């Protein structure tokens, strides 16, 4: 068994440390917001989570494209890891949003485009993870989840615009340009902290996926075979 990659572990540690610094800054050092008070401080985790959820799912889409084009297994491992990470981050995003919405808007949930699209993304990509769990043949699992991931990713903007036409209430996005300079640093530090954390975790998770796949595809007879870098031409049993 290969040891976990040092680079991934270093990224996780760096990300966690940055998140600690950024959260301390946001909770203690930064001033409270004039209208919303301390409730606003959830922005320091909420906005970075939103950026990184989109990034993780975009990375999953790229992995799916590369897998279909090259048939190289490492893209399937990364796809599995990135999709899980994207679903977890999107779910966190919905939860943080609800916690913020209750004292601010007075409701836990609102049918605003970004909120609704995030919820749809959780179900769409969560469904693909379920599909992965129910397919035993590694080749079919990889191809099908890549296809489903591409379709779901292309669907996301259509969902967003349809819900936007349907109803709208969310605040304009918060970026370092739209918030006062006192709030910049914790926002930026947490954004990079979350980024390093998930990239490191995806690296580790992809290693786990690769190990599991090698176990599944190991030939039943003791036959000498180089570590498979490419998908076999023929698929497994139906």
């Amino acid at each position, binding site marked *: 068994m290969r040891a976990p990659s040092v680079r991934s572990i270093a990224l996780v540690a760096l990300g966690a440390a940055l998140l600690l610094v950024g959260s301390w800054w946001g909770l203690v050092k930064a001033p409270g917001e004039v209208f919303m008070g301390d409730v606003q401080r959830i922005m320091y985790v909420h906005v970075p989570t939103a950026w990184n959820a989109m990034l993780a799912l975009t990375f999953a889409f790229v992995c799916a494209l590369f897998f279909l084009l090259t048939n190289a297994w490492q893209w399937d491992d990364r796809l599995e890891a990135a999709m899980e990470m994207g679903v977890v981050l999107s779910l966190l995003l919905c939860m943080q949003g609800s916690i913020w919405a209750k004292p601010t808007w007075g409701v836990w949930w609102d049918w605003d485009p970004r909120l609704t699209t995030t919820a749809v*993304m959780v*179900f769409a990509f969560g469904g693909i993870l379920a*599909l992965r769990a129910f*397919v035993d043949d590694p080749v079919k699992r990889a*191809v099908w989840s890549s296809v489903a991931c591409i*379709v779901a990713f*292309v669907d996301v903007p*259509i969902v967003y615009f349809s819900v936007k036409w349907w109803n709208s209430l969310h605040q304009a996005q918060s970026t370092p340009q739209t918030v006062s300079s006192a709030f910049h640093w914790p926002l930026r530090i947490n954004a990079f902290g979350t980024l390093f954390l998930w990239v490191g975790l995806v690296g580790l998770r992809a290693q786990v996926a690769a190990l599991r796949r090698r176990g599944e595809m190991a030939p039943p007879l003791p036959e000498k075979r180089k570590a498979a870098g490419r998908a076999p031409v023929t698929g497994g049993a139906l």
Partner: protein
Amino acid sequence: MKALFVAFRKDLLLQWRGKTQAVAIFAFGAATLLLFSFAIGPDSSALRQHAAGFLWLGLLLASTLSLAESFEREMEEQALEGLLLLPACARTLYYGKAMANWAQLALLGMALVPVMIVLYDAGTLRLLSLLAVILLGTAGLSAPGTLHAAMTSQTRARQTLLPLLLFPLVVPVLLAAVKATSLVILGDPMEQFGPWITLLGAFAVVHWSLGGLLFGRVVED
């Protein structure tokens, strides 16, 4: 082109020879329409208000049965592999099947309209607009539905997986079709019908193209 027509005809013929299945799916759709009205209560104005939503939810629920059925038949005796050995590309098979599914879903939708009118008092004389919504909406359901049914029909837990994968994807179809149908039934003073129809059309174009591009990889072996 001829191969496409043959594939389309084959699926419709199969469906025609097993008419009981279609009747059962229609009965399922009608039963859901009946059940939705129990959730609202006997308030006729509220029922009329929600009629379009119920129609499309009923159609969406019934569509998973019909879409799944179209591939389950191909799993018997490894019929799908036989089809792939024919001198026709997988894309032709996909479009043939998707068109057959589209035809069935559109017929199902049209058959459910009278049920909706009777149960919810949601009549309209703008039948052409209603027909356009049903045709475009079911086109949006059948393209991703056929693609995903091809995958889920070969897995364990297929009855759960198809709706799980399909429902989040077709949220735009549901939104736009419900809005457009509502506008047809309840009147359209703000002229919003056009944008919703455009959205349905755009969704259908995107997913019919994607499905054709990707289907070959789904059934390769």
